């Protein structure tokens, strides 16, 4: 019984793939996978608008190898379980190119599936080093790594802040804990004592116990590895409890919503972010194009997502092919001129060169570069 059921299922699957294959003959489909819902969906929006703009512009300039690109959104809600479901759906729909996912904890399990199925994946946002450290062929990224971002933050703390009693807090997730650990190691090498290293639960609302502890430890600097919903509340509750410390976080907290949540308490927060590509004069035309569509081009993942689509399209042109394996090989051998600079990939699929910048955040949601 079960055997026949499986056969039917397999047959059904094959039929489905066949029809899908026939329909998509004249477009090249690119799946955009990221959170459209859930607490960090605004990052997903950055990724989607960046990638869709690239698709639009490439199509306007004649497409790729005589074909148009077609972007299709998939919502993984930044939930690892849903990310796997999305990956399976992409496989079933016979899409061979993916830009995404966004959260490292979603990208990791989804990338296993893409690698196995020979689907080319470029993430524009996942910064966990583990994603490209497994010898995979099909997995690339157009953003820097936590192992770069952590030391950048750590060096800045050691050289410019020189805190007396520093604490490192993280949200126990792959991204947050990874980056927090990297910061801790860097500052400890520079001789700064980390008096407290603790994890909080993502989704928690009350951090008063932790803040009382930070206050008792007389901490004057806190590094937080994680996303803005938790740090926003920590900042707000710290102000209520009169904790006198400076805070710093990775690009996961560098979002206007942190100012909405924390209000005045977000003034003076330090954030490491990719360079503001929207400030680059070379990207003026592109920024105007975003503005014409009433989209916000200032988010950290907008331009890396644009570049992800562009390097995909450029290497399809270079390789004169739509075969993901050939394109992966081209990505490794060529270099590409994109709005995020001249990009070249190393053997692992990481960028050869990517810089993070330290910004000071203001309570109105704006930021000023510090180094």
């Amino acid at each position, binding site marked *: 019984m079960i055997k026949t059921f499986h056969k039917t299922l397999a047959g059904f699957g094959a039929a489905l793939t066949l029809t899908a294959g026939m329909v998509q003959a004249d477009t090249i489909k690119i799946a955009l996978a990221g959170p459209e*819902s*859930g*607490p960090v*969906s*605004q990052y997903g929006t950055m990724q989607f608008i960046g990638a869709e703009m690239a698709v639009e512009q490439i199509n306007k300039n004649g497409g790729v190898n005589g074909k148009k690109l077609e972007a299709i959104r998939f919502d993984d809600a930044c939930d690892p379980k849903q990310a796997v479901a999305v990956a399976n759906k992409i496989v079933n729909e016979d899409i061979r190119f993916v830009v995404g996912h966004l959260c490292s904890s979603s990208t990791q399990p989804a990338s296993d599936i893409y690698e196995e199925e020979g689907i080319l994946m470029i993430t524009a946002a996942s910064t966990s080093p583990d994603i490209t450290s497994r010898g995979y062929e099909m997995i690339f990224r157009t953003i820097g790594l936590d192992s770069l971002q952590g030391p950048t933050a750590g060096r800045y703390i050691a050289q410019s802040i020189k805190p007396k009693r520093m604490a490192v807090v993280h949200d*126990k997730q792959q991204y947050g804990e990874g980056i927090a650990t990297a910061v801790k190691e860097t500052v400890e090498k520079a001789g700064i004592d980390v008096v407290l290293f*603790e*994890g*909080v*639960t993502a*989704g*928690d*609302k*009350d951090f*008063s*116990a*932790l803040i*009382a*502890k930070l*206050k*008792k430890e*007389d901490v004057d600097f806190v590094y937080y590895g994680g996303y803005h*919903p938790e740090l*926003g*509340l920590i900042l*707000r509750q710290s102000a*209520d*409890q*009169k904790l006198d410390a400076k805070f710093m976080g990775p690009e996961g907290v560098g979002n206007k*919503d942190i100012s*909405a*949540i924390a*209000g005045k308490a977000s003034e003076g927060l330090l954030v490491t972010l990719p360079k503001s590509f929207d400030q680059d004069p070379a990207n003026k035309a592109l920024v105007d194009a975003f503005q014409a569509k009433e989209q916000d081009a200032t988010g950290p993942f907008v331009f890396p997502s644009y570049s992800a689509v562009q390097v995909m399209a450029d290497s399809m042109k270079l390789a004169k092919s739509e075969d993901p394996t050939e394109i992966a090989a081209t990505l490794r051998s060529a270099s590409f001129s994109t709005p995020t600079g001249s990009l070249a990939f190393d053997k692992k699929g990481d960028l050869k060169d990517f810089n993070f910048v330290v910004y000071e955040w203001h309570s109105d949601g704006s930021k000023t570069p510090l180094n």
Partner: protein
Amino acid sequence: MPESAYYFIQQLLNGLTVGSTYALIAIGYSLVYGIIGMINFAHGEIYMIGSYVAFIVMAGLAMIGIDSVTLMLLGAFLVSIIITSTYGWSIERIAYRPLRGGNRLIPLISAIGMSIFLQNYVRLAQGSKDIAMPSLITGGWTIGPADGFSATLSYMQVLIFVVTFISMTALTLFISRSRMGRACRACAEDQGMTNLLGINTNGIIALTFVLGAALAAVAGVLLGMYYGVINPYIGFMAGLKAFTAAVLGGIGSIPGAVLGGLILGITEAFTAGYFSTEYKDVVAFSLLVLILLFKPTGLLGKPEVEKV
């Protein structure tokens, strides 16, 4: 007083506040369970809707130029209680009443479905982004030395304690003293018999859900302002913790729900304060398991007599 004493006081206050927030939601769980013996898993979602309504009312009042704190609070509480009560009544009517009398598990599944529906309905209607609630009540007291560690207690925290205790007392009195309360208790004993004696059991059960929803609204308004952030997912975690508190204190007992909430909150605060934030849930839930091992009905719960 030494610094460690102030630290202890601060963590105790933190624990009491978190505990009161759990208790406020747990009372609603316990009320419904006590009367119809059903766990209303959509209760956390009602709490979330209460927060959203409060936010909409506050934003609306601010837009038409009313910025008096008293008016805003009053408006938020009133509108939010009315709207969530309507939700409470409709949920009972749509999702639970048609299933009443059957297997006990069926309404439970229906409740989980309702919870998922409400969460996604709010997500679609309001978006999944965090919304920042204005904190209308600011400031507080500071106790302790000017230099070194000092404990703080905000007016908002005090308001949460006070409202929790008023709700608990008022409800306990309502159930034990009023005519309606007697009808509620009769319903809990034996629905069929109560009906035969001329009491509209459907009405009583609907009233229970309305009361539960009104309490959830109060919690929604207060906690929304206290934490300052609401999103469509806050109901799930809050509901889970409140449910734990209700079970810990003895589900069905209203003072038990408050006691359970406070114990849970204080355990979490002390674990986070003296041990590590990472283990606060582990310790809190281990405590739950321990208490249930030695007292399966919870701290103040009455042993359930199997009805035949």
